[in-house]
């Protein structure tokens, strides 16, 4: 059984990846690790769903079992959703198979015993096209392909997981539900803001603009002033608003990759050499503590 084997810990992405493989005329098989997960993908239009059944709750612990299974099935590609878990499982499978892998690709096409992929390198400044020969692993983020429908036969295979890493506990993290991707206007804030209470000024600006608030990684992950789903960039969200107002952000490419689909970008930074001024349409060189209150005043007029 050649064909594309799909896995994602997020069923929604697994459905999309089946859509991707079938659109390319490939046989598509979905791998899951539980009966419940099988239920969620059995109408994915896949040719078959395989439950790799073992007594372990951490999907990554099935890497060796998945690698063996792919070999046994003469798989041509292991196509995995690019989530934290998916990337880990995918890379471990690639390690056990000692085969090529392309991470977080933006495009994939199938050739004879080969796949060609495209991905960003250097933080998004450069795209690289690669060709992988033989059994390969590719990860793709959600939202790129359309799911299809159709029922699939479900088959259970008993496997032995790796029990060396043991689960102690899981604490769900709540998402605040800010929909940055759909926002028409976004105020983006960076480490130029000195104190947490100064974020009020940013909220005020967002309010007069009727905008959502995004930020750079440091504001979310180091300062914890905003939740992680609000940071923008290569490892965060990608936005495409009509207007993006960037405040106190240096404009390094890992961040600007996330704002560069905006229609108009305005930047405020007190360093005229900041790279954000090369990425914006309108730039104000100045102290954000002076400029932001003036902006709020002007917009209220």
């Amino acid at each position, binding site marked *: 059984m050649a064909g594309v084997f799909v896995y994602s810990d*997020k069923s929604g992405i697994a459905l999309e990846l089946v859509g991707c493989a079938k659109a390319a005329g490939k046989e598509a098989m979905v791998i899951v690790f539980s009966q419940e997960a099988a239920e969620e993908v059995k109408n994915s239009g896949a040719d078959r769903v395989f439950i790799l059944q073992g007594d372990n709750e*951490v999907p990554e612990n099935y*890497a*060796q079992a998945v690698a063996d299974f792919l070999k046994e099935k003469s798989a041509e590609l292991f196509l995995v959703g690019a989530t*934290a878990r998916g*990337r880990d499982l*995918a*890379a*471990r499978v*690639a*390690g056990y198979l*000692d085969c*090529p*892998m*392309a*991470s977080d690709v933006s495009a994939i096409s199938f050739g004879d015993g080969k796949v060609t992929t495209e991905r*960003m*390198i*250097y*933080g*998004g*400044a*450069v*795209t*690289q*096209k*690669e*060709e*992988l*020969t033989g059994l390969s692993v590719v990860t793709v983020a959600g939202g790129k392909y359309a799911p299809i429908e159709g029922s699939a036969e479900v088959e259970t295979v008993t496997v032995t997981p790796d029990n*060396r*890493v043991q*689960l102690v*506990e899981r*604490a*769900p*993290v709540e998402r605040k539900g800010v929909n940055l991707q759909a926002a028409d*206007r976004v105020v983006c804030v960076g480490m130029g803001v000195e104190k947490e209470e100064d974020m009020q000024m940013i909220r005020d600006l967002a309010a007069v603009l009727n905008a959502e608030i995004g930020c750079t990684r440091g504001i979310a*992950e180091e300062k914890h002033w905003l939740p992680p789903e609000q940071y923008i960039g*290569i490892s965060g969200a990608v936005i495409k608003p009509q207007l993006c107002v960037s405040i106190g952000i240096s404009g*390094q490419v*890992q961040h600007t990759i996330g704002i560069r689909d905006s*229609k*108009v970008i*305005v930047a405020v930074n007190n360093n*005229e050499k900041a790279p954000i001024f*090369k990425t*914006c*349409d*309108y*730039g*104000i*060189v*100045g102290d954000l503590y*002076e*400029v932001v209150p*003036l*902006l709020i005043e*002007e*917009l209220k007029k």
Partner: protein
Amino acid sequence: MSKIVACYKWVLDESDIRINSDLSVDFSKAKGKISDYDRNAIEAAVKLAEAVGAKPVGLTFGSSKARQSLKDALSRGLEEAFWVKAEEAENADGAVTARALAAGIKAMGDVALVICAEGASDTYARQTASRIGALLDLPVVTSVLRVTVEGNTVTAVRKLDDCLETVKFELPGVISVLPEAFQPTIPGLKAVMAAGKKPVTEYDCGSLGVNLVSARKVMEVKAYAQERRNIIIEGDNAAAKVAAVVSNLKKEGVL
């Protein structure tokens, strides 16, 4: 004394990359640096080694250019550096990189824990920790936000897309740490001076038996085209600059 190994990569600084008008990429002016997040991995190795009385060491797979990285890495608190050398390292994919690093880990011996960063600032492929773990068949924990070692037991909190997951395993093993888990410190003058005297071991890929052949071929490298107007509003009067921008935004129809 057993070792805690920080893996790091000597990369080109992306801010030095020049884009030509035909979208080809000019790397010739780019200086090297230790990949940003690898500095956090080095910090993790130093801090964890201190806590458990192990020896923090650095390991890199790199071409002759990576020689410049050794002193920098050692100034960050590592006690010894290991360098798996091959000119092919500059274009190596995840498979070749992991083979070389795994061979280095085997060769140095007595390794308790291998620490990688989340991803390198050039490729950001996020494969290395998982691949090394698989090649050496060691337990792996990625996306680590907090980690403690007690005796032989490692307890780690992973930050995943929708949960914090606490796991544990017995050494030896491999982890990858998130950048926010350990903040790198900037080495002082004394640390920089001392770094030059610390031991460095070079391994040749040939004698380690590393297979440098990859089934991945790079077909094309092209710059991303960024077209922006870059209108910087000049003047000393902030209020006037703000008014000018707002009036432009109104004309653009985005307000």
